């Protein structure tokens, strides 16, 4: 089992803090009284609620349906009654609420009917739809809908399947523990992936600081009827990043702006494989996951947690301590601070890390960048972080993009090594979200311009049609007038006839206008009145201005 390994550039070696939680057995977290299940737990389209307030739901019942291809369903994690479908706090850094379905559990934990899928007999497209409706999404943290990733696309097969057991972030051990205790089930999931992707080479990459997990996976690999190569890779952060794992194992780099499937490689987290096995062999949707609760708690360990369980119940379970300075979802390198502890565990929650001043001293004050390029040496994306920082700080987003801002994976290595303690990743996140917002704004403006231009065109056309109709009518009238014998003896000239017609039309129009005068403008407060007058004046002016060029065009 000696495979040539490759080294990716950069990376750091933060203290690991793994053994604190990885050596303890898995415990099941108790059923909470209330579950809050967000509808947005994956990348892509938000799930649409398919239950109503007051409905009784069973464990595993779909409560939010997938909306589109890149989406995943969400399910009731236990039986109970839907008490609300509204905005609730969610584990997001902004602290903004999002649409959630709240379920009052009835402690019966009653399962809905579910049956294993005969995946080998199913049409792959149907199987993928089933997996989407079972709510499968990547459990490594990115929560990309797994069904979409299990589609080999136009290539019809994806030769290399990599199972990512890297788990390079400090403190987190849920994948390690899962591999130690459920290696067989993980490989059952791999069998399904292999079936859907048509993969021939299967690699399991595990960092060499997890010898027990490596041993367990190797033992399990002996028992399956397909070849699985379990590879110990060097421990270095972010060696568990998908792109880094690909390079370590195969020496290939995913081309910038493309997907790994473009070079015939697909990567899944071990947790996803386990969830897939539960879905296919038991028909169970993704309603629970393994969560590491660690940091400043009394008993650091891994729990099987129902999706929707409030985070504070887990911290209480692990034994909360005085001196807590905050809670992170995820590890210390890429984790997200939680706005409060009412927020539920979601599919992306791999770790709940409780901070204290001893474990995570407050970060020192930032100094100016001295361009020492330690960040560039540490950057696994081979970027020049110091330049990106300069551009992002100055708001020069165009240059930031030229310097490959969007190849940044936000791993935090640059911030970690920065001797000036600059929160570099923050600047990249800011620049990225600003660029996205501007693109969105630009699209909106383009749409508005298009709509406006079309309207102008439509008005013009209607005007022309009307004019033609009127001309035809006038012609008819004139003919009529001419046919009548002149009573006064002097035939009215053509021009006079036209004038008379216009005068009559004007009178009609004025009468009509008087009729349709807005009736609700009496008894208005003076400021409202003034506002209306102002806007009226503006409209009049616009009308005036709009008419001028038209008239000048009509003259010749």
């Amino acid at each position, binding site marked *: 089992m000696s495979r040539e390994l490759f080294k990716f550039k950069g990376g750091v070696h933060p203290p690991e803090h793994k053994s604190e939680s990885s050596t303890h057995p898995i415990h099941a977290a108790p059923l909470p009284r209330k579950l809050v299940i967000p509808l947005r737990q994956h990348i892509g389209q938000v799930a649409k609620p398919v239950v109503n307030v007051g409905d009784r739901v069973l464990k595993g019942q779909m409560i939010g349906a997938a909306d589109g291809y890149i989406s995943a369903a969400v399910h009731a994690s236990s039986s109970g009654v839907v008490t609300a479908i509204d905005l609730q706090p969610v584990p997001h850094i902004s602290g903004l609420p999002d649409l959630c379905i709240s379920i009052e559990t009835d402690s019966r934990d009653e399962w809905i009917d579910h049956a294993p899928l005969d995946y080998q007999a199913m049409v792959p497209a149907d199987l993928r739809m089933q997996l989407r409706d079972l709510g499968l999404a990547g459990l490594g943290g990115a929560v990309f809908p797994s069904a979409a990733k299990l589609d080999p696309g136009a290539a019809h097969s994806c030769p290399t399947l990599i199972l990512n057991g890297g788990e390079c972030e400090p403190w987190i051990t849920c994948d390690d523990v899962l591999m130690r205790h459920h290696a067989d089930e993980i490989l059952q999931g791999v069998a399904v992936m292999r079936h859907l992707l048509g993969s021939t080479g299967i690699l399991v990459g595990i960092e060499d600081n997890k010898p027990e997990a490596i041993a367990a996976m190797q033992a399990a690999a002996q028992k399956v009827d397909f070849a699985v190569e379990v590879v110990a890779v060097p421990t270095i952060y972010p060696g568990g990043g998908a792109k880094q794992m690909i390079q370590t194992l195969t020496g290939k780099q995913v081309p910038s702006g493309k997907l790994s499937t473009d070079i015939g490689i697909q990567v899944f987290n071990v947790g996803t494989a386990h969830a897939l096995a539960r879905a296919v062999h038991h028909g169970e949707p993704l309603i629970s996951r393994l969560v590491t609760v660690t940091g400043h708690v009394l008993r650091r360990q891994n729990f099987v947690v129902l999706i929707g369980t409030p985070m504070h119940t887990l911290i209480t379970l692990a034994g909360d301590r005085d001196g807590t300075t905050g809670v992170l979802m995820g590890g210390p390198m890429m984790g*997200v601070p939680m706005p409060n502890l009412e927020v539920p565990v979601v599919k992306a929650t791999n770790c709940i890390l409780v901070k204290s001043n001893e474990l995570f001293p407050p970060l020192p004050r930032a100094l100016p960048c001295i361009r020492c390029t330690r960040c560039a040496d540490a950057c696994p994306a081979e970027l020049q972080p110091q330049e990106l920082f300069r551009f992002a700080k100055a708001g020069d987003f165009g240059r930031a993009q030229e310097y490959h801002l969007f190849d940044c994976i936000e791993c935090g290595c640059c911030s970690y090594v920065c001797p000036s303690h600059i929160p570099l990743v923050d600047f990249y996140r800011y620049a990225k979200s600003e660029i996205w917002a501007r693109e969105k704004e630009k699209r909106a403006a383009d749409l508005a311009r298009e709509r406006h231009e079309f309207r102008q065109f439509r008005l013009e056309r209607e005007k022309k049609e009307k004019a033609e109709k009127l001309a035809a009518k006038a012609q008819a009238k004139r003919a009529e007038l001419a046919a009548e014998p002149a009573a006064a003896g002097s035939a009215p000239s053509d021009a006079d006839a036209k004038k008379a017609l216009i005068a009559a039309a004007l009178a009609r129009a004025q009468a009509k206008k008087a009729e349709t005068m807005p009736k609700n403008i009496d008894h208005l407060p003076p400021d409202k009145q003034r506002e209306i007058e102002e806007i009226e004046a503006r409209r009049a002016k616009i009308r005036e201005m709009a008419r001028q060029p038209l008239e000048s065009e009509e003259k010749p």
Partner: protein
Amino acid sequence: MPAPFILDRSSVTQVMAWVLAALLPGIAVSVWLFGPGILVTLSLAIVTALAAEAAMLKARGYPATPFLTDLSAIVTAWLLALSLPTLAPWWLIVTGTLFAIVVAKHLYGGLGQNIFNPAMVGYAVLIVSFPVQMTQWAGPLSLTETPLTLAQSASVIFGGEFPKATLDAVTMATPLDALRTGLLQQYTVDEIITQPIFGHYGGVGFEWLAAAFLLGGLLLWALRIISWHVPLAFLAGIWLTAGFLHFFDPGRFGAPWFHLFAPSVMLGAFFIATDPVSGATTPRGKLIFGLGAGFLTIVIRTWGGYPDGVAFAILLLNLCVPLIDQYTQPRVYGEARKGKEPQA
């Protein structure tokens, strides 16, 4: 405050402290071979630099503590002091340091913002304004009959008074000066290096000073404070340029080893050209920066108006840094290699 929530133990202060520590061998050799005068110069430069730094921080509305304790002002002060003649008068030291800190550093925006190396700006201003005083080097002790004590050195620096009858014995031309003067007087290199000031590779004493700076530089490299790119390219630039000239006319151009073992070259290669703030940041850019500075150093030494060219060469290359950086951006992860598809 978002992720990451842990930091490596590095800091600007730590980086600067290592730079200062790496200068200690050079200082020790200087004291041993050239007398204790350098200690007076260093102390005066430190005091001036810290005072100027504090005043400028206050004037610009920045907090004093984090910036005074980052040690960057002291690094500038030491680099300038080590470039000056060991018995330079006090006002020369003060003027140079003030110019370095106030103009070259703070008027450009302070730490991290200066496009020129402050110490070299200070040096350049001094050598342009006071060329005579800038060449009054204390000779190596082995060539001096009555070495000066610390107190005597201080009185020379502050009072400008040399102990009677020792003036000529104490100060003398540096090897580079001697070479330059000799060449101007139509002597050949072989004739010039018979003078007592010349040693095995460089000047007597000076070659040991250069070796001490080299040692400190290697320490910085071993600690990953500096990368190998700039020093190696700088030394290569000097060796190749000097070697090329020496090969064609050994009588008119000094040997490459002689040029390499001038103390200013080792100090420049490992401590000044490697200044991250004013230097190139990309690996290829660092090589270009070093080679260019080495080449220009020899050009200025050979045809310029000053005996040494390290300071001017580095300042000129500082000017080119934005351009160098822009055109040497390395390939990023997953980016297509030039002329072929990304390695698949």
